[in-house]
């Protein structure tokens, strides 16, 4: 029977980053991945004969620099400008990093945007270091990273009194109000509202939505804050690079190993039982799986306190982002828009809010909003010659549709194609095959509870020291030797590896103590 010092459950980006960090510190680490290939949301698949999507996620914007540097990842990154599509063809180009260049708007709007953008980036920059640390606890002897916290406080203080007051004002307001206050162009407001709410269960007018934009802007690619990039080979190339680095560090990766239960003896995790009946023993178990799955299913409620179980059951994890893959027989025409850019259909902030309204009632929106990438233009190998792959994240899709799963999926696909046809006339005729993953499909395939891409909604009441729950926020669980390392923990999802890295650091720190 093979034995390992540390078992990492889940071979997604967080599992891989945690495994690498622990192996580097000298531990023998085995990663257990249920699927045939590792990568999690960064694993690719053929969605139609000859057509491939290189991942559920398709844009890189949050990759943790510690992970890139630590794992020595060489990613060939193409910066992605965004285009806010207009049905009229009067597009707005949102170039550079987060619209550092803006074309297609008035001078006054450009100036207003530059001011708002600078402010948002400044605030996000102050908060960014939070991502790379375990969330603090309000308790004596909590083992907080005091120095980092002091630096953070100093950085906030150095904003100056006016800016600091402004940060506190905007921190918990909604993005819709902020955009109304500062901007006039509906395309620009629509784009920013879309970026803010991407992957969440919030509309632009929902309370606390602005902080999610700050969270997004706190990310960086290649040292560029708030940048968006497409890695060569897509997300699966990121997963591949991480797998290679982990392997080189001595991590053993076992694909097709589905964990049925975490073995616990005397209140301590001692290994796992695979669904094949095979038992693997270890001194520590690090779960990069969903926190609800880990604790409610693999540990089970009987070994946990009732309050914790109840709070975990009630932790919100509704997904509203669907993933659309189209196999196209030719290049579509989005009324002249640069097809190598990230194309966003979100004509106004109201359009985003209107697309959110129906999902509250388990219904499908008639005019969904989406971000579109024509991936085959960047990587021709994804489609047969002359053909193309369109990859889109579409919002908002109900995770528990009233109409039933199949009917809602068909309805949503129809709504997507209708919306696409409005912005790219003739595209419907080019569709050879369509795959739409609704939140419940994503849950089934990727283990994301409720189909939420963050493995638990990223919202202010479930962020930082409240993620996934206050008592689980330092990556520890009540079971000795069992750690949480997935996107369900701080700082949340996105192809990032940050939660896994933080968890590994917490485990190593505890080992030293």
């Amino acid at each position: 029977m093979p034995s390992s010092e540390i078992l990492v459950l889940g071979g997604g980006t967080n599992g891989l980053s945690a495994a690498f960090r622990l192996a580097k510190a000298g531990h023998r680490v085995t990663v257990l991945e249920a699927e045939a290939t590792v990568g999690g949301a960064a694993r690719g698949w053929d969605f139609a004969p000859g057509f491939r999507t290189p991942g559920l996620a398709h844009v890189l914007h949050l990759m943790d620099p510690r992970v890139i540097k630590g794992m020595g990842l060489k990613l060939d990154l193409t910066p992605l400008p965004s285009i806010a599509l207009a049905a009229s063809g009067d597009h707005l180009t949102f170039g550079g990093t987060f619209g550092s260049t803006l074309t297609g708007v008035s001078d006054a709007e450009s100036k207003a945007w530059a001011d708002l953008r600078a402010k948002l980036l400044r605030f996000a920059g102050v908060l960014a270091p939070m991502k790379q640390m375990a969330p603090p606890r309000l308790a004596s002897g909590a083992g907080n990273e005091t120095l980092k916290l002091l630096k953070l406080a100093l950085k906030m203080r150095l904003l100056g009194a006016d800016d600091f007051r402004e940060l506190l004002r905007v921190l918990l307001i909604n993005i819709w109000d902020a955009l109304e206050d500062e901007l006039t162009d509906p395309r620009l407001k629509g784009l920013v509202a879309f970026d803010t709410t991407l992957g969440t269960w919030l509309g632009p007018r929902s309370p606390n939505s602005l902080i999610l934009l700050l969270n997004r802007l706190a990310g960086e690619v290649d040292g560029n804050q708030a940048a968006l990039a497409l890695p060569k080979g897509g997300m699966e190339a990121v997963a591949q690079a991480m797998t290679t680095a982990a392997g080189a560090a001595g991590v053993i990766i076992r694909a097709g190993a589905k964990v049925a239960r975490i073995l616990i003896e005397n209140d301590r995790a001692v290994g796992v039982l695979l669904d094949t009946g095979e038992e693997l023993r270890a001194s520590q178990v690090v779960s990069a799986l969903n926190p609800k799955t880990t604790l409610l299913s693999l540990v089970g409620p009987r070994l946990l306190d009732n309050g914790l179980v109840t709070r975990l059951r009630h932790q919100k994890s509704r997904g509203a982002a669907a993933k659309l893959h189209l196999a196209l027989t030719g290049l579509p025409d989005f009324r002249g828009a640069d097809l190598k850019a990230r194309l966003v259909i979100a004509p106004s902030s109201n359009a985003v809010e209107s697309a959110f309204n129906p999902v509250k009632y388990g219904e499908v929106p008639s005019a969904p909003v989406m971000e579109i990438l024509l991936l085959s233009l960047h990587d021709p190998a994804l489609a047969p010659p002359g053909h193309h792959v369109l990859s889109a994240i579409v919002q908002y899709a109900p995770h528990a549709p009233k109409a039933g799963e199949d009917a809602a999926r068909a309805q949503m696909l129809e709504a997507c194609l209708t919306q696409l046809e409005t912005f790219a006339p003739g595209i419907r005729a080019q569709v050879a095959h369509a795959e739409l993953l609704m939140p419940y499909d994503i849950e089934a395939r990727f283990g994301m509870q409720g189909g939420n891409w963050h493995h638990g909604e990223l919202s202010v009441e479930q962020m930082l020291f409240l993620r996934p729950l206050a008592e689980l926020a330092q990556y520890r669980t009540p079971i000795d030797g069992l750690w949480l390392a997935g996107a369900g923990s701080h700082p949340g999802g996105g192809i990032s590896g940050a939660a896994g890295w933080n968890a590994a650091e917490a485990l190593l720190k505890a080992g030293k103590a």
Partner: protein
Amino acid sequence: MSMDNLHYLTPLKQTPFHPRVAAANVLNNWGPWAGCTSALTLADEAMEYTAIRNAASVYDLCPMVKYRVQGADAADYLNRLTVRNAGKLPVGSVHYTVWTDDHGQLVDDGTLFRLGPTDYRICCQERHLPWLLDSAYGFDVIIAEETDEIAALSLQGPCSAQVLKASGFDISSLKPFRMATFPFEGGSLMISRTGFTGDLGYELWTDPARALPLWDRLFTEGKPWGIKAIGSTALNLARLEAGFIITNMDFIPAPQAVREDRTRSPLEMGLGWLIDWDKGSFTGRRALKAELDGKTARWTFVGLDIPGNISAEGSLIYAGQKDEAGFITAAAWSPTLKCNIALAHVEKIYLHRDLWVEIYALRELQYVKLMLRATVADRPFFMPARRRATPPGNF
């Protein structure tokens, strides 16, 4: 409007025994208990207390909250919920137990009845349905509140066994904390040898339709033994002598506590003996283990013997007449023991110093401050041999 919607007109519910209790309640002295009308003193507090200790007393127990736990996982469920081992409780038996939250702080105490291999009843002071239902996640159990479906009486006192025998229920072989079922008026009556007085006594459980016939049978057959209806005031005195605690009088249940330092762990309430550390996981176990291992318990719960005869109810306790060391939650002059007794929370660090109780004695509209040296006394203050004797004594 249907009558169902008019409940607000009578915010307190009347129990199935209300017609009889009301007739006996010549002082018309009522108080609320768990949403029901409950008698405080019916006619004469001293005579009611005397019935408990010297004859037979009847107390309307209907407002006590009752939950039924049934299903294949009932024992496992209760082992996860409560600190004691419910699996070891034999069918037909009762035990006293407590349960805590994740932090090991008391939620409530109560008695657990094992009615069948997969069938239990919890009797307690406060309502906990959400907590009980949440705790059922992952267990094959059905939880139901059945407070209103059961009419319960407490028959306590040295003559209680004789009253039952005269009423046609042979409980001579019934041991303490055991129960037995008897046919009664076309239905059934369950009798458990349990109670809240520390004396020989029984609790009687039937359906509400048989409540008044039961009352009438007891009072008719029990007349030679001076059977008497009692109110909460007399019972409270008896329970204090027995050293029993009451939720929300001697400790604040954790879900209701507003102030962080008001909650108590079982270890701090002298209830550590209930905890089965070997039965496996239960809610609060990790916190309680940490408290035990780290010796972090701040409080201890003790009985006090205080000079004089002025009740020290609500008094503060001082170490060396100066440092505030604790407070009293229940106190009275005990007519049976001829002692001034009290139940008190004392901070552990002061336990072995000289403890003084500050009493404000009201003497003709004027408070007089007394500072009296108290001594820690063993609980229960009063535990007569007749409480446990089987067969029960023939008084």
